[in-house]
């Protein structure tokens, strides 16, 4: 189990050649929500692999069930990296993804989320969906850590299944929190800017 996890993480690192930069942020095992731009199916896997081992063990990427739940291999990989599969097609009122995330992480785990929802094919990032806001409204103690994933969309673009091993770069930025009484739209805009700012560092 532990071995497959390491093999998986090393493979992901080899394919993506990812450089990881911690900018005004230190690796920590405290409970965090890493939120990143979404450009490739590999995003969750690569970001998760680029975290240091002890943090990786405590971090669960939120991934789309319609992709990672499909086929034995993907399901196996998703289970190995401890993914939290979210059904994007069928969001029920009493089983909202945010409640599920909060329940799943308890008081120990961190999450990796992609607030853009779907993968982005444009150069520019899409508007963030409100999940991140609701999540931090319910758990204001969680550190929100912006992450910018660069170049990974070229490694494995939408609809492709064979990766091209280009070099990618992951920048992890300074943590932020939901301010008291901060309006939803302002917060989401601030969060999106926090990710975008990391692009130019």
């Amino acid at each position, binding site marked *: 189990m532990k071995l497959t996890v390491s093999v998986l993480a090393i493979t992901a690192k080899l394919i993506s*050649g990812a450089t990881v930069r911690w900018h005004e942020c230190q690796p920590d095992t405290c409970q965090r929500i890493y939120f990143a731009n979404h450009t490739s199916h590999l995003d969750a896997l690569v970001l998760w692999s680029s975290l240091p081992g002890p943090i990786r063990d405590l971090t669960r990427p939120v991934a789309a069930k319609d992709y990672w739940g499909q086929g034995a291999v993907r399901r196996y990989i998703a289970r190995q990296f401890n993914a939290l599969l979210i059904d994007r097609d069928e969001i029920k009122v009493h089983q909202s993804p945010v409640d599920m995330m909060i329940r799943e992480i308890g008081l120990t785990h961190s999450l990796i989320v992609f607030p853009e929802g779907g993968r982005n094919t444009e150069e520019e990032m899409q508007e963030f969906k409100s999940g991140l806001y609701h999540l931090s409204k319910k758990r204001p103690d969680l550190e929100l850590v912006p992450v910018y994933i660069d170049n990974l969309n070229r490694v494995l*673009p939408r609809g492709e299944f*064979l990766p*091209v091993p280009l070099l990618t770069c992951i920048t992890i930025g300074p943590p932020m929190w939901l301010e008291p009484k901060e309006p939803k739209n302002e917060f989401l805009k601030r969060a999106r800017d926090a990710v975008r700012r990391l692009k130019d560092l």
Partner: protein
Amino acid sequence: MAIAPAPLFDALLLAQFGGNIRLDARTNILLGSVMGILIVAAIVGMALRRQPESTASPAVVTTFNRRVWAWWMMFAILISGFLFGYVATVVLFGLVSFWALREFITMTPTRRGDHRTLFWSFFLFTPLQYFLVGWGREAYSLYTVMIPVYASLFVPARIAISGDPKRFLERVAKLQSGLLICVYAVSHAPAILDLELTTADGQPWVLGTAAASAASSSPESSVVANGKTTGKGANSAQTKKSAESKAAAGTSPSIGAATPAPRQIFGSNAGLLFFFVLIVQLSDVFQYMWGQLLGRTVIAPQINASRTWEGLIGGVLSTVLLGILLSWATPFGIVWAGPIAGLVALAGFAGSMTMSGIKRDRNVKDYGTLVSGHAGVLDRIDSICFAAPVFFHITRFFFSNIG
């Protein structure tokens, strides 16, 4: 040969070391001196890092240390390749190419439609080129056209099939030149190892005969004969052993060594490859040094602000001199080693200028800083890329048995 002052030194130069790549004593002397220089450079680098900023500018120190580190890597790659044989060397150079292509393509923007073509470039053409080089000189006619002809035809066709016409020619050219520079050109360096080297007059590059070294009966060479991995070597070692046990009865041991027919000792291809990498790297250093000392006229300020005519001329002349000084490690002889080294220096210069042009076009300073933390393989091998085919073809045409 030029350097043979004393019989002992001569014997030392002729000693042979096992493995499937011949590492003769000349090569070992070359490797040893370079390693000594690298150790000194590493110590100097460490000392510089401790200096206060007033005496040594941190940027220069960082550049210096990065270079030294890259040379250690190159040295390690060449040595481990030599120790594990021809195929291992080819594989290691293949990995270097793969990484260089990775940096090249990461830097050049591609479009969605290029994805599959990129995939084939990385996982079909790069391995195939090195597979053919690894096959050896019989495959020369294939590996010499695989990328310039077949990959160059495949790339536009595959991109066309993907159905995206935007900036078509530009995208094709990017991929073609990436493959040509990073893969095709570099693959000529390990191919040097499989040439049947001759001297300028077409005779096999023979340094001497084994009898000569056996006569001096240096313990070194007999140990090595036992360590030889080839079947032939093992046989002769056995006969030698039995001869020696007989010799214990009363005869002198030198008779045992003299029984096999005098074996010719050929020059070492590994040494020649090492000579090549060494002069390319040092010509870079020479050009930098002369540029710093005398540099006034910048060749192309918009491409590279530090390359000057003075640096180029000084660098090429110094490389010619170095080539002459190291001619004992090559089959070229004193006459040709100089001009060949000069040509290699010019080709290396052309490579650096070309890569600078590409970098300026893409607005990146170093391939290394493109994605921070990476070593920037392309920064270090840009001159090798252009010099390798030149050196290979000169050596192959004039100094090898094409057959």
